[in-house]
Each structure stands twice: as structure tokens, then as C-alpha cells.
């Protein structure tokens, strides 16, 4: 259900496994995060994704369990890559299957918002001016905070 890996992932195969002929699923929402070639004005040639082995998996599981307690989820998939990535590479997949679309959209966005603010991953970007650690974005904090009620 949850994987942290250096290799790329195949969205179609992940969705196929989630559906696995379960006819109770009416809605499948997926999010794929991709490396952009420009971030806050910096041209990105590549990036390095570091994480905290052990805590990462634990933290992602807690986020998924929180989503499961909040919405009736029939299947969930979270795959996050680590290591060196270049523009257009896939970084993360979050996919959620439910009976109804409202639940699937909400749960998928909830998991992404918490992943962004709670899961111990860090990005270091390589630009023509050198490399730097990406700063946490205030908008990500606000996005996660709106689920807190």
C-alpha cells in the first residue's frame, strides 16, 4: 500500500492493482507529482530527494490511517521516490478508490497535504547557480491546516 523507492513507478499498473476487479469502486482519484524545470524562479537541472528511513514509512502509514478513519476508502496507494531526479520525472503517486467521488477527491488531497508537511523527505535542487535545499512552503502548511476541524 505504501512504498518508498528509488525506481520509477507505473501509474497504470498501480491503478490496475487497486481496482483488482472490485465492483464496489465507483471513483478512483490519483495524484502524480512531477519534477518541474523551474521552481520559484530557479531553473532546475536535477534534484536529490533524501528521506528518513523508518520514520518515512511510519509517517506515511499514519497519514493513510487518518484518511481511512475519515473517509470510506476501498483502496489506497502511496509511492514516493528518493534519490536523484530530473525534470519530468515522477516524484510521488497518491491514489484513492472509493464508492463515491467526493470521498475519493477529499482523501487524495488530504493525504497529499499531510505528506507535504509531515513525511520526512527533503529536496535539494541543482541550478546553474549551484545547489540548495528547498525551503518549506507556507502554502503547504495552510493546505494541511484546513483539514484540522
Amino acid at each position: 500500500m505504501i512504498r518508498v523507492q528509488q525506481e520509477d513507478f507505473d501509474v497504470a499498473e498501480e491503478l490496475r492493482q487497486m481496482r483488482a476487479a472490485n465492483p464496489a469502486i465507483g471513483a478512483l482519484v490519483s495524484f502524480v507529482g512531477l519534477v518541474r524545470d523551474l521552481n520559484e524562479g530557479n531553473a532546475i537541472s536535477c534534484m536529490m530527494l533524501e528521506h528518513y528511513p523508518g520514520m518515512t514509512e511510519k509517517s506515511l502509514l499514519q497519514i493513510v490511517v487518518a484518511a481511512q478513519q475519515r473517509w470510506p476508502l476501498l483502496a489506497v496507494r502511496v509511492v514516493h521516490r528518493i534519490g536523484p531526479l530530473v525534470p519530468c520525472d515522477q516524484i510521488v503517486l497518491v491514489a484513492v478508490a472509493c464508492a463515491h467521488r467526493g470521498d475519493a477527491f477529499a482523501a487524495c488531497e488530504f493525504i497529499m497535504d499531510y505528506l507535504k508537511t509531515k513525511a520526512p523527505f527533503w529536496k535539494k535542487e541543482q541550478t546553474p547557480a549551484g545547489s540548495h535545499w528547498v525551503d518549506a512552503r507556507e502554502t503547504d502548511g495552510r493546505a494541511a491546516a484546513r483539514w484540522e476541524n
Partner: protein
Amino acid sequence: MKCQILYFARMREVFATPAEEVALPDSVRTIADLLNWLRARGEPWCSELAAGKTFRVALNQEMASLDQILTDAAEVAIFPPVTGG
């Protein structure tokens, strides 16, 4: 008390190590005490862990607050705010 300290991302680079094993005096009981003990080493701990700096601490792989009590053989991690996804 013994403790494993892990550093990630910018912290790992600035402290030039991903991890260290420390033997703490009895006076170090909480996360806040541990941070003070590290700051007392001087630079770069002193600046990087200064009160105005933004960093996070996890205790045994859970996000921790300053007043949490350290346990023997605890795994403490110090890192910048996360930026995955």
C-alpha cells in the same frame, strides 16, 4: 544515558555527519536539554540550533516537542521542515 542522534538534509551537511552516538550527563532529561547540550559544543551547533532557527526534532521516529523526556537508547533526529511530495 546513551542516545543516537540522526541529522538529515541541511543539518547532515552542516554538522558533517549523518549520525552520532552520544553519552549524555544525568542533567540532560528532555529534548530541550539535549539541544542545549549540543549548543554548548560551540559552532556549528550553537548557530544552527539557535532559538530563532527553524528545525524539527523527532524522538523514536515521531515528531517531538521540546519538553518530551528522552529515554535510554532513544533515537533522536534533527532536521529542517520537510519538503517532499
